[in-house]
């Protein structure tokens, strides 16, 4: 525990102060959303963006409403989904390095999506439904496997993470196998899910992603106090009347849902789910009533800014966003490991 974070939390001790911080984050998010819409091959000014948003599709409105806005809104929803799922995993597994990306749930969903591309046509399912269902199914498989293997190994913080890492390797290997076996056109599609990209987002996908996000957050919010209690320890939570194993299953099911849907639409995007919860914790403390919206806001902000940065780095090239978040996220990840080793 650094003195800096304690000083910070000290200043934001009151509910009001911390709620104000959430409001500030929401304002930042709105700014980032506008910036994201303005950036791209055809650079728009802020007045053009605001004008198009208010006036509807006409002139620049086509670019804004058909291309930029769905992508920008998708970045927010996916970032929020990853942030919240990372937070919940870190809380229920008692490990600061847990996230759906580091523990194989994203990889599972990515494998599910790739499997559908390679073999789905023989199943006779339409891609619009078959692919998300397949991704979702394998996200649930990975999430359940983390819990089952982790519990079998004793159920402490390390055992879940080891189980998750084993699953990550397994699904990566299976994905490599699929790539090796896939026809060239299918291969190009699989690569999309490997790196993560926002550019396939249509309004249909954006709507589904936001619906999933709001639904899952609504259910998670009902458990906010139980998550706060669980942040103490398993036994302390049990001593408050919580059935810890049931809460853990419920949480992992929702994490799998959020991750599965996000991966189905934009592919695997790493590190946002790992870092966003830590940012929120540093500023808001352990109260999950604030942390759940806090992790959602910081995740959304991170991915939105990464989207802007990606466009600036390569104005016409459209770098997959997964590569941008990995490049920004890796130093943070190392910082976390080093801080942890030093003993908190």
């Amino acid at each position, binding site marked *: 525990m650094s003195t800096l974070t304690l000083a910070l939390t000290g200043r934001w001790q009151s509910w009001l102060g911390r709620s104000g911080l959430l409001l500030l984050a929401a304002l930042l998010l709105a700014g980032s959303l506008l910036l994201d819409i303005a950036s791209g091959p055809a650079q728009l000014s802020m007045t053009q963006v605001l004008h198009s948003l208010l006036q509807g599709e006409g002139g620049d409105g086509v670019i804004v409403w058909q291309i930029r806005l769905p992508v920008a809104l998708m970045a927010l929803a996916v970032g929020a989904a990853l942030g919240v799922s990372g937070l919940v995993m870190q809380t229920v597994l008692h490990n600061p390095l847990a996230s759906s990306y580091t523990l194989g749930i994203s990889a599972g969903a990515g494998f599910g999506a790739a499997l559908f591309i390679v073999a789905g046509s023989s199943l006779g399912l339409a891609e619009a439904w078959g692919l998300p269902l397949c991704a979702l199914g394998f996200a649930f498989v990975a999430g359940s496997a983390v819990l089952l293997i982790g519990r079998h190994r004793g159920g402490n913080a390390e055992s879940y993470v080891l189980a998750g890492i084993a699953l990550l390797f397994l699904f990566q290997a299976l994905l490599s196998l699929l790539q090796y076996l896939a026809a060239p056109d299918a291969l190009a599609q699989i690569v999309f899910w490997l790196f993560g990209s926002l550019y396939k987002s249509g309004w249909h996908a954006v709507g589904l992603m936001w619906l999933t996000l709001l639904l899952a957050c609504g259910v998670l919010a009902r458990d906010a106090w139980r998550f706060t209690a669980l942040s*103490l320890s398993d036994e302390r939570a049990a*001593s408050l009347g919580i059935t810890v194993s049931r809460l853990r299953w419920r949480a992992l099911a929702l994490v799998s849902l959020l991750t599965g849907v996000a991966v189905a639409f934009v592919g695997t995007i790493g590190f946002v789910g790992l870092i966003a919860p830590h940012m929120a914790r540093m500023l808001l*403390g*352990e109260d999950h009533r604030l942390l759940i919206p806090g992790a959602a806001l910081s995740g959304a902000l991170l991915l939105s800014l990464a989207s802007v940065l990606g466009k600036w780095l390569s104005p016409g090239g459209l770098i997959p966003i997964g590569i941008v978040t990995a490049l920004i996220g890796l130093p943070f990840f190392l910082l976390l490991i080093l801080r942890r080793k030093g003993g908190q």
Partner: protein
Amino acid sequence: MLQLTQLSVRLAGQTVLHGLDLASGPQGSITCLLGPNGCGKSTLLRTLAGQLAYAGSIRHASQPDWQHHHGTLPAKVAWLPQDCGSNSRLSAVEVVLLGKLQTLGWRVPESLQQQARQQLAQLGLSAVAQQPLCQLSGGQRQMVFLAQALMREPSILLLDEPISALDLQHQQQVLALIEQQTRQRNMLTIMVLHDLNAARRYSQHCWLLQQGRVLAAGATAEVMTPALLSQLYHTPISSITADDGFALFYHGRHAQPA
């Protein structure tokens, strides 16, 4: 009164508690659980807290359906597990509030916050109410969790070594408080202790547990004898009588009068 009949518990294929027949003292009294490390004290407490499957029966007036609670703490029971050195950044008052978990909603009413602050004040912890748990001493942390347990307004209070992390002054303070609250709230307190003198002074009933079996159980004054305690811990224990009439136990053989 809590009545255990033929209570057996198996953990990882091994029988840890072998058909215990035990009765506690009445409401408003403290029953103390003594025995060497690994004798099953914590297992018994965890079983009473609804955390472990068992054979046999557990009966108490406040909780007729104990068996239905497997995996979850019964409503009228508060359980203070051994301190696991939580590094949480929750403030003391937030930790105490968690004692009312079942009633906490998105908004916490002022009356509930007031109750949590009063609970801390009763234990002399008002000064650290807003401090994060990770900045408190082991003793303060233990008392914060005691305040949390009392927030549940239990009929039965289960304490697993509540004074093991405390210095002498704080040990007395916490035990006196437990005794006072037990009487005032008419709770039945069942407490695991390693300190024989504290057990003698503060409990009215006593269970001696050895290798998962009952060695002796009954009124503290009758059960806590040098002979039984020596047998319990496999080491010589003697006693002298203190000024206030309580027996004081010490390790070693009684010096024979010349």
